[in-house]
């Protein structure tokens, strides 16, 4: 029972802690992850803006460089004179300084005058130049992204055509391509028309090829992500797509190289290239998950030709989440351990007094009424302990009382047994004495002296019989057999029994009858033996010529002053009782008589009988003057009235 209480406590603690930490784990983890994700997407959105700025600033840089070039007087003069040789020198100088991959001049007829690559002054008719032609048509400077085909690139510089060629690498989650490689190049280019005094001289064009270029993407990585790394990998990546093909990137493929030739995932391609929207979400990039931002790149003709991408490794944020989750789990486990510990502690604290109470109750059931129940607990178990203790105390008291009662009844029983045994043993020889004394007395011719002696024997045997009877009565303390009795009649009858004795002793026996006494319900035989006892004692105490006066009348007991009662007073002019003996007078076996003269049984038996009648017996005495015994018996009002009428 105790163990189950303990386990219940622990279990409830555990379940609460599991519930709380479980909810905290899920909700907290989710909230945290969302916050982290939110932070990350906000970051890549900003990063994408930064990347775009870098991309656009590079275009602007090309445009500015070309613009500045067209303003140079040497350049203008050379262009006016179509001095190709000189122009090539100038252009190569500019291209080197501003890191242009290609640059050249197209005449107002649309023919390439020169460019910086090999065969710088082409003889044969040249291929159409998309950006220069746009500037030619619009007679204004243009700049932006432009797609250049393989032939054009080859004509500009075979090296460029070679750089632009990119083999497709099969990529997870991407749309497979029927072709095996991409030949076109994507370039950031500008074209600036040159005028001289209102005359249109031609167009200066130039640009950088983005294929396999590291310049822009690495600048994005270095400025935006500041070379932040995670597990040895750069956390931030940037990519320029030609359509969905990575042509310039710092995303690293598993072989350790830049993932040029790999493709964007299908959903990104669909979202950004086809629908022309921004993509800001987690996405699968080459071989890992990133928090990414994509936006379409439009060329100078407004066509969506590619995408600009930045992304941060999701692993970093997942790691933050994982760390948070593991902290949550550690807290949970710690909480559970605490719950178990606390539960055990509280359970044992709670159950210790209960256990002690159980042990105590077992001891009580085995008869030990003062078991150890330990210190009183301050909790509500303390109330139980106190109640248990009180219960024990009252049990002990009850035990003690019943023990006393038992002792008393045992005492009485043993007295009874003794008296019974003595009576039985004495009564048999008494039968013999009676028999032979009386048989002798039957003889007619006995001498007078012998007869007198025999009569004495008979009388004394009679007395022994009475003593034994008294002893039996005392031991048995027989219950009262009450009936309404006229006290005066009872006294008169009793006196008749002792008349002869008084006569023989020469004592005057007087009876002063009280008038109008109520009937009293009493045990006539027992009350008669009381009276007999008192009168016999008086006879014994009084010398010949003395007086014994019995008086009846209404009286009051000192113990019950409000109770009406009848008293029987026996006054003698005998020797009296010394005051030191007065108190002991009613003790059993107290006697002042010589051995053989009395047993002392009478008065204690008498006391018991009167007491059981709710009455009282007391004595007043003066040595040499005589004694007065008073027997007081209560009158029961209702009964007294009734009997007064009927009994007269």
């Amino acid at each position, binding site marked *: 029972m105790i163990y189950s209480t303990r386990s219940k406590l622990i279990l409830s603690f555990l379940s609460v802690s599991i519930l709380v930490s479980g909810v905290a784990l899920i909700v907290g983890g989710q909230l945290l992850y969302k916050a982290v994700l939110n932070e990350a997407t906000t970051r890549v959105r900003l990063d994408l803006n930064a990347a775009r700025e870098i991309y656009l600033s590079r275009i602007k840089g090309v445009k500015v460089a070309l613009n500045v070039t067209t303003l140079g007087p040497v350049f203008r003069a050379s262009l006016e004179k179509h001095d190709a040789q000189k122009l090539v020198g100038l252009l190569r100088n500019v291209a080197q300084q501003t890191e242009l991959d290609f640059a050249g001049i197209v005449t107002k007829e649309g023919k390439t005058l020169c460019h910086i690559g090999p065969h710088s002054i082409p003889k044969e008719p040249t291929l159409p130049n998309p950006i220069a032609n746009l500037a030619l048509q619009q007679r204004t400077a243009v700049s932006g992204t432009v797609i250049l085909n393989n032939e054009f690139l080859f004509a500009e510089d075979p090296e460029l055509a070679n750089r632009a060629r990119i083999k497709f690498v099969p990529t997870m989650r991407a749309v497979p391509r029927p072709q095996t490689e991409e030949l076109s190049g994507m370039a950031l280019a500008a074209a600036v028309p040159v005028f001289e005094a209102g005359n249109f001289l031609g167009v200066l064009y130039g640009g950088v090829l983005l294929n396999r270029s590291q310049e822009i993407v690495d600048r994005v990585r270095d400025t935006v992500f500041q070379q932040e790394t995670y597990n040895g990998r750069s956390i931030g990546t940037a990519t320029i797509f030609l359509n969905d093909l990575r042509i310039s990137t710092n995303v690293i493929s598993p072989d350790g190289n830049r993932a040029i030739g790999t493709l964007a995932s299908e959903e990104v391609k669909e979202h950004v290239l086809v629908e022309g929207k921004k993509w800001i979400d987690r996405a699968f990039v080459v071989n890992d998950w990133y928090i990414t931002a994509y936006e379409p790149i439009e060329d100078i003709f407004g066509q969506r030709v590619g995408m600009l991408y930045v992304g941060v490794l999701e692993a970093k944020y997942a790691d933050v989440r994982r760390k948070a989750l593991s902290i949550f789990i550690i807290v949970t486990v710690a909480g559970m351990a605490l719950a178990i510990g606390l539960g055990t502690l509280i359970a044992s604290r709670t159950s210790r007094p209960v256990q002690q109470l159980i042990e105590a109750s077992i001891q009580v059931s085995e008869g030990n009424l003062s078991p150890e129940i330990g210190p009183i607990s301050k909790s509500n178990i303390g109330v139980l302990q106190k109640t248990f203790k009180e219960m024990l105390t009252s049990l002990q008291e009850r035990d003690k009382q019943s023990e006393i009662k038992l002792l008393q009844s045992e005492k009485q029983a043993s007295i009874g047994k003794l008296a*019974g045994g003595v009576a039985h043993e004495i*009564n*048999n020889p008494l*039968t013999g004495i*009676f*028999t032979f004394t*009386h048989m002798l007395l*039957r003889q007619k011719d006995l001498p007078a002296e012998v007869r007198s002696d025999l009569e004495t024997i008979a009388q004394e045997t009679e007395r022994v*019989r009475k003593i034994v009877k008294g002893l039996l009565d005392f031991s048995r303390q*027989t219950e009262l057999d009450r009936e309404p009795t006229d006290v005066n009649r009872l006294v008169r009858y009793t006196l008749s029994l002792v008349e002869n004795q008084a006569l023989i002793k020469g004592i005057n026996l007087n009876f002063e009858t009280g008038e109008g006494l109520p009937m009293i319900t009493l045990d006539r035989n027992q009350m008669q033996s009381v009276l007999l006892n008192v009168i016999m004692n008086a006879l014994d105490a009084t010398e010949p010529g003395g007086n014994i006066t019995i008086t009846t009348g209404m009286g009051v007991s000192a113990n019950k002053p409000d109770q009406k009662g009848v008293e029987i007073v026996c006054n003698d002019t005998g020797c009296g009782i010394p005051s030191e003996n007065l108190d002991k007078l009613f003790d059993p076996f107290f006697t002042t008589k010589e051995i053989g003269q009395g047993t002392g049984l009478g008065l204690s038996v008498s006391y018991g009988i009167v007491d059981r009648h709710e009455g009282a017996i007391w004595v007043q005495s003066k040595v040499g003057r005589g004694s007065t015994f008073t027997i007081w018996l209560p009158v029961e009002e209702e009964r007294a009235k009734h009997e007064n009428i009927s009994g007269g």
Partner: protein
Amino acid sequence: MKILVVDDDAIVIKSCRRILEAEGFEVSSVPSADKALEELKSYDFDLLLIDVKMPKHDGMYLMREIKKNWPEIPIIIMSGYPTPETIAEVLRLGATLFIPKPFKPDELVKSVRQALKNVPPKKSFPTGAG
């Protein structure tokens, strides 16, 4: 008239014998209940005088045994310890009379005659003998 006295105390038997023989009764005596039953098998008695308290089997036992086989014989039970309970039990078991010990010769004789008076006279004995 033949009376059997059953008592383990010799003085009681002696006393009873003295009193009853003086009155002309024929008296036999035995000291125990078992002996009394043997005696009853051999002889007929007109009255039994039995003590309550005896070693081994007491007077109550003896009375029960007698009532089984000789229900008509009058029985006087005597006791030196006459409690109301004993008296009630004795009378319940069918004793004719109860007499407390010690008794005077007159008391015993009176009881015996009273007990015999209540019994219808036996055919084998002349009437009016008690």
